[in-house]
């Protein structure tokens, strides 16, 4: 990259990215893959994703845990939502967000992840971009990726024709190879499909009734339709190597989400009911530990009216009716 300032910030991250890439490359070569093959380098990129995403698991687990705790504050959350029900003006919505956030803070149940996981991945993404960019020129990286490996990475091709550093737009302008365009196109489709599926899974199955009523939910729905556009644009402009990183990362998210929805669904969601049904079938439904059901049984309305004394026989009849 041409921006020296950014390069300085990214230097340590680039160094680590290169180290992980080279380590995986070494491993794949060690078990007998061709060191110069495109596939070997793609697998190294996949390895990089595995390491990065595994490192992010603790953050994810924390998020899940606080979502579990949401159950305890569900009634309070409902109260806030009822208070602002039908009020669509900006001030009411702002006040509602304020109260909701304050509730999260008070009870330590903030379900939002902050932008840190994204911020962490962004420099890795840029670093990979820049490593590929340099490798394309046959330049050495900043550390473990020496000149020889850098050249190898830069020259690596898939199917012998599609270089990993090439972009759809580059191939388009140069009039080929068409394989680059095909692979890029395929990846855009796969990325869109996996993202769509992940989002749909979360929205359709893993949302508590409270969350489904929040404005956040509507925003997520819009997201569902904007993301494919983003993928198309980036799929045209990004080198194949970077696209492989993104695609693998998407697939990881999909798998992770699937496991979470299956085994640790949000209480009160469709997925939670499905899980209970599954466990009940196997006959090992553990009793919920003091956790109240989301739809608590409505208390009989308290009346100040005196209860009419009932004759014994009549009381018996009423009892039978139940």
């Amino acid at each position: 990259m041409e921006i020296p300032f950014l390069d300085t910030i990214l230097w340590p991250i680039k160094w680590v990215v290169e180290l992980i890439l080279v380590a995986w490359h070494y491993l794949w070569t060690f078990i007998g893959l061709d060191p110069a093959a495109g596939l070997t380098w793609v697998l190294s990129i996949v390895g990089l994703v595995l390491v990065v995403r595994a490192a992010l698991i603790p953050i994810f687990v924390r998020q899940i845990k606080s979502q579990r705790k949401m159950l305890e504050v569900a009634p309070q959350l409902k109260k806030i939502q009822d208070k602002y029900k039908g009020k669509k003006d900006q001030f009411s919505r702002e006040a509602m967000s304020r109260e909701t956030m304050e509730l999260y803070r008070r009870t330590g149940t903030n379900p939002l992840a902050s932008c840190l996981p994204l911020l962490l991945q962004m420099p890795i993404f840029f670093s990979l971009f820049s490593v590929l960019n340099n490798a394309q020129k046959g330049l050495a990286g900043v550390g473990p990726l020496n000149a020889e490996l850098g050249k190898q990475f830069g020259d690596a091709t898939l199917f012998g024709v599609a270089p990993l550093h090439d972009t759809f737009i580059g191939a388009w302008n140069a009039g080929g190879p068409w394989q680059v365009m095909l692979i890029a196109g395929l990846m855009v489709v796969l990325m869109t499909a996996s993202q769509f599926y992940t989002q749909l899974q979360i929205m359709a199955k893993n949302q508590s009734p409270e969350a489904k009523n929040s404005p956040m939910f509507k925003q997520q729905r819009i997201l569902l339709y904007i993301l494919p556009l983003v993928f198309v644009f980036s799929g045209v402009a990004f080198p194949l190597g970077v696209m492989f990183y993104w695609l693998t990362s998407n697939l990881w998210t999909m798998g992770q989400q699937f496991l979470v929805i299956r085994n640790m669904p949000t209480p009160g969601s469709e997925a939670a009911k499905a899980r209970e049904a599954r466990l009940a079938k196997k006959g090992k439904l553990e009793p919920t530990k003091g956790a109240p059901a989301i739809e608590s049984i409505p208390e009989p309305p308290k009346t100040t009216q005196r209860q009419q004394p009932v004759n014994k026989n009549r009381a018996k009849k009423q009892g039978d009716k139940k």
Partner: protein
Amino acid sequence: MMSVVTAIVLLPRNLAVLILRGYRAVISPLYGDVCRYYPSCSSYTLQAIQQRGVVVGSAMGLYRIARCHPWAKGGIDDVPPVRRQRYRLTPFGFVVASHGKG
């Protein structure tokens, strides 16, 4: 004359406002609500820049982003109010002089 000077003084922060508004309209919705605070980090930075200019505002914004991580408690965290409101905001969020023709 004063209004020209004010416009020049306010130019950097209005540029920053434009960039942040663009970011909030295009990029923010891409990953939905993730901020653990209210207002969100970008909204906080926008307000800080509107009130105090690009340098102080950006620094406050960066400090806010640094505070917003999965282990933070979150909650309400407004920009500390300035002592004297010298400017006025347009509906879009641009900062303009509060006196004069405008």
